[in-house]
């Protein structure tokens, strides 16, 4: 199968590294697997015979490559029959989902499998995109979009096929969990913990998307729609961030054996808010870790813990890619059904 990578930022580059390291394994699944194109915001690289993956790993910007075509776009490549799978890794945009939404719509409508860690299109148009994928008999996989390396969608799709999920709660943002953990263990103020996170590159210079709970809310919407058959939108989430949390509140909680965590919950409604979590609850993980606690009718309780962002996310993207490669030639893809 022929892979097109759209976006050559952090994720795009880390993916290319992993593809280099695992190429012989991937070829053992699909002998014809190759990367035919890579796109950034200003142009692309395309080679129908396959781009030399070692060459790619020598550059940090796509434009450094001798075959770089300035001015070309992903739409040019998707518009022709040049690839079978697209990894869409452009920046998340929750206002209109672009440019990812247009890329994904076009790919799916042409029967190209899509793998994406990009939350924007999924938050805004989950049902539309899943229907489009189903109509065109191709896959839309997005394991990397929620809680990074934690394989929550694969787990539910493969291992909880007969369970009905009745409630889900989770720590879905590593930045806020890092800040709250530092406040808990080091007894420092919110402001200092935030500054420290920014210095370490864990928080953005403008941290509001994380600390005001918006990132966690986006992930909650995707989880609700994908795993529980809801028709949720971002507006449906009651969101409270962690800005107002004082050191005193954390120490009051700690003395009573609780930690304060930013928790996303899907119950009757959707909510992201700081909550008191008993320190011995399986969801009570620290640092940049994420955790997802699923409650189902049969299995009752399952907790997943792992890294929610960073290069660990490649694990999820690669697994999605291998899922598509293995299903080649099998009967059509269909979106998972909700029990």
């Amino acid at each position, binding site marked *: 199968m022929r892979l097109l990578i759209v976006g050559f930022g952090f994720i795009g580059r880390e993916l290319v590294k992993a593809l280099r390291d695992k190429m012989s394994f991937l070829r053992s699944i699909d002998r014809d697997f190759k990367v035919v194109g890579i796109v950034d915001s200003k142009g692309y690289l395309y080679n129908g015979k396959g781009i030399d993956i070692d060459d790619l790993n020598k550059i940090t910007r796509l434009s450094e490559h001798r075959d770089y075509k300035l001015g070309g776009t992903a739409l040019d490549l998707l518009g022709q029959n040049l690839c079978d799978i697209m990894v869409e890794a452009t920046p998340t945009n929750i206002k209109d989902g672009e440019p990812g939404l247009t890329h994904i719509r076009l790919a799916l409508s042409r029967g190209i499998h899509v793998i994406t860690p990009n939350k924007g299109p999924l938050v805004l148009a989950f049902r539309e995109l899943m229907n489009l994928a189903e109509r065109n008999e191709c896959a839309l996989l997005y394991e990397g979009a929620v809680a990074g390396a934690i394989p929550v969608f694969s787990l539910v799709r493969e291992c909880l096929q007969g369970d009905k999920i009745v409630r889900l*709660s989770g720590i879905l943002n590593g930045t806020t969990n890092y800040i709250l953990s530092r406040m808990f263990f080091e007894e420092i103020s919110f402001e200092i913990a935030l500054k420290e996170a920014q210095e370490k590159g864990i928080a953005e210079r403008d941290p509001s998307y994380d600390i005001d709970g918006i990132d966690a809310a986006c992930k909650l919407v995707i989880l609700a729609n994908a795993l529980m058959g809801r028709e949720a939108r971002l507006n449906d989430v009651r969101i*409270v961030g962690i800005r*107002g*949390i*004082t*050191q*005193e*509140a954390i*120490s*009051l*909680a700690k003395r*009573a054996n*609780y930690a*304060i*965590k930013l*928790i996303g*919950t899907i119950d009757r409604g959707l909510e992201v*808010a*700081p*909550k*008191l*979590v*008993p320190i011995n*609850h399986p*969801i009570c993980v620290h640092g940049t870790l994420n955790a997802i606690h699923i409650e189902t009718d049969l299995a009752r309780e399952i907790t997943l813990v792992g890294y929610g962002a960073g290069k660990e996310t490649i694990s999820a993207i690669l697994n999605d890619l291998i899922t598509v490669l293995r299903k080649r030639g099998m009967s059509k893809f269909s979106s998972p059904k909700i029990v």
Partner: protein
Amino acid sequence: MKFDMTLALADKPGQLLRALEPIAKNGGNIISIIHERDKPVEGYVPVSLVVDFPSRQNFRNAINELKNLGIAVIKSEEVVEKVRLTFILIGITDLKKIIESRIEGVEIIGLEILTPSLNKVSIKLDVETHAEAVNILVDHLRRLAEDQNALLIAPIYA
């Protein structure tokens, strides 16, 4: 739901079985039973039961049928399950409003206040509440917090 009941049975054979009939018929599941045969009071033996009925209606039906059989029901009340919950409020300006909240079935059992370096007061509130009043309590505290521009931190599963 569970009910605590005390019946007065005539001190003669077969009375207990007769009394249990309406309970079983109405789906009651007996959790405990104390039959004090050696302590008859004026010819009556008190029997204390805790019974789990599928609904309040089933419970009421059982009580009516017991009365129709001429069995005296001395006590009958719902056993309310209580839960203890901890909340934290940050930035409350009017503490009195919290302490004076009167919600049926809710009792404040602990209050800890940290007045900090900054000007925001952090409060830990421990309450004991009927399981059924939890939602009302959370809504009430949320509204109080909103009115005072404060932040409520509720327990994860309240």
